[in-house]
C-alpha cells in the first residue's frame, strides 16, 4: 500500500512519524511505503511567530531541517503538488513528477489574506510569516506612544492569537516604560471578546484591570491609511497610530485551483477525516472545512486519530476510531502567566485562572515541540 502525504507541516509530519512507528514491520517488508511531498526543506514552529513579534524568540529557533524530523523510512521530496488527479489516484508536482498512491493525505495548511480587506495589508502589521513578525517587532521598537488598535478577521489561524498578542503588547510596552503613553484598543468580530464564552468571561475583566479598551461586533470593512482610521461592517470606526491585525485566512491556492474546496478548505468528514465523497483521500489540520480551531493541536490530534486508522486499514482493512474534535490551546495571559483551553465536539472548555506554571510550561513546549513533531511526545 502506498501512502502519500502532501504537506510537511505539523499535521503531515506527525502523521508520517506516527505511521512509521505503527507500520514498522510492513515498511521493512516492503508491503507499505510512506512518501511525503512538501514545498520546503525546512519545518517552521509557527506558534513561535507570536514570540518573534515581541522579541521573545529569534528566527533560528523556529526552524528545523524537515528531513531531520522524519523517520528514516519516510521518502521525502521537496516538490510541491500542482495537480491533484484524484480519479487516477495520482498527483503531479512542480518538478514534473507523478506520484501514485492508494491513500493520500492532504495537509497543505492555510495562508493569511490581509489584502482582501481594502487598505489592510498596506497599513497593518501582522505576524503570520517570519518577515511580517520581524516587521512588527521593528515597528514596535520604534513606537513612542499613541493608539494601538488590534483588529481581527475570520476565519483565522490560532484562535487565541488575538488575546495573546494583546496581553503580550501590554507587557511589551510596560517593560519599555511606555504603557502610560499607549492606548491599547482590542476589537473582535462577535458580541464578546473571545468566541469561547468561558475564555471571554475571564478575558474581559482582565482587560478592564489592565486598562485595555475593547469593542465587540467589529468586523473589518476597510482601512483608511491616510486618515489612520479603520472602519467596521457594523458602521463604527477606530483611529489608530499603530494597527495590528489577525487577518483572515484561506487554504492554499493549489487546493482552490484544483477545485477541491471553496477558499481552499476541503469538505471533510468530521469524524473519519476523509474528503467528503472519497474514501481514499484524507485531510488534516487547517486544510479541512471543519468548524473547529485552525491550530497546531487540532492537526496534532487529527493526525494521531488518522495514523491509528490508516495503520488499521493496512492491518485489518478497516478504520477503528473516530476523531472526536479534540483541541488544546495554550493562552498566554501576560505577566508571565498562561492558561489553556481543551475541548472537543461534545465538551466545552473550562479554562482555569492563568498561572506562572502554565506559562513556563508553554515556554518549555516551544522547545519540546520538536519531540512532538518527531512523534515522541
Amino acid at each position, binding site marked *: 500500500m502506498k501512502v502519500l502525504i502532501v504537506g510537511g507541516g505539523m499535521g503531515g509530519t506527525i502523521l508520517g512519524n506516527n505511521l512509521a512507528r505503527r507500520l514498522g514491520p510492513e515498511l521493512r517488508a516492503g508491503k507499505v511505503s510512506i512518501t511525503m511531498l512538501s514545498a520546503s526543506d525546512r519545518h517552521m514552529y509557527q506558534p513561535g511567530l507570536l514570540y518573534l513579534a515581541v522579541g521573545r524568540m529569534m528566527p533560528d529557533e523556529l526552524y528545523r531541517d524537515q528531513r531531520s524530523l522524519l523517520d528514516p523510512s519516510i521518502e521525502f521530496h521537496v516538490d510541491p503538488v500542482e495537480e491533484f488527479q484524484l480519479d487516477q489516484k495520482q498527483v503531479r508536482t512542480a518538478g514534473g513528477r507523478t506520484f501514485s498512491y492508494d491513500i493520500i493525505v492532504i495537509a497543505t495548511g492555510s495562508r493569511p489574506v490581509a489584502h482582501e480587506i481594502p487598505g489592510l495589508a498596506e497599513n497593518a502589521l501582522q505576524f503570520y510569516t517570519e518577515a511580517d513578525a520581524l516587521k512588527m517587532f521593528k515597528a514596535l521598537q520604534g513606537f513612542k506612544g499613541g493608539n494601538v488598535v488590534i483588529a481581527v478577521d475570520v476565519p483565522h489561524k490560532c484562535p487565541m492569537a488575538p488575546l495573546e498578542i494583546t496581553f503580550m503588547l501590554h507587557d511589551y510596552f510596560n517593560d519599555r516604560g511606555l504603557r502610560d503613553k499607549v492606548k491599547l484598543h482590542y476589537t473582535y468580530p*462577535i458580541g464578546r471578546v473571545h468566541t469561547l464564552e468561558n475564555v471571554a468571561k475571564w478575558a474581559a475583566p482582565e482587560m478592564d484591570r489592565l486598562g485595555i479598551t475593547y469593542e465587540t461586533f467589529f468586523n473589518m470593512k476597510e482601512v483608511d491609511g491616510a486618515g489612520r482610521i479603520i472602519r467596521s461592517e457594523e458602521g463604527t470606526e477606530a483611529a489608530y497610530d499603530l494597527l495590528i491585525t489577525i487577518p483572515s485566512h484561506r487554504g492554499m491556492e493549489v487546493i482552490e485551483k484544483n477545485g477541491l474546496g471553496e477558499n481552499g478548505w476541503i469538505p471533510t468528514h468530521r469524524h473519519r477525516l476523509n474528503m467528503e465523497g472519497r474514501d481514499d483521500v484524507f485531510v488534516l489540520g487547517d486544510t479541512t472545512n471543519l*468548524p473547529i480551531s485552525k491550530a497546531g493541536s487540532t492537526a496534532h490530534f487529527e493526525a494521531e486519530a488518522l495514523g491509528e486508522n490508516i495503520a488499521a486499514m493496512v492491518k485489518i482493512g478497516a478504520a477503528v476510531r473516530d476523531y472526536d*474534535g479534540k483541541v488544546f490551546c495554550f493562552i498566554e495571559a501576560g505577566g508571565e502567566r498562561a492558561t489553556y483551553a481543551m475541548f472537543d465536539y461534545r465538551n466545552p472548555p473550562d479554562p482555569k485562572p492563568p498561572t506562572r506554571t502554565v506559562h513556563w510550561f508553554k515556554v518549555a513546549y516551544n522547545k519540546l515541540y520538536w519531540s512532538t513533531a518527531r512523534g515522541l511526545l
Partner: protein
Amino acid sequence: MPKMRIVDARGSYCPGPLMELIANMKMAQVGDELEVLSTDRGSATDIPEWIRKVRHEHLGTEEKEGVWHILVRKTR
C-alpha cells in the same frame, strides 16, 4: 441564481457558530440563504443580533432535537 448554504457548526465551540457564519457570509453572494446548524443555545440570540447590526436578513430560527436551525439571507 441564489444558492442555499448549510453552515454545519454543530459541536463547534471554537471558532463557534457565529464566527463560522461570518466566514461563510464572505463566500456567499448577495441573495444567497445560509442555514446555520448549531448545538449552542446562544446562537439563537447572538446570530440574529449580528445579522441586525450588519443589515442582513434573519429569516427564522427553529429548534429540532437539540439543534438550532437559523436561516439568514445575505442582502448586501
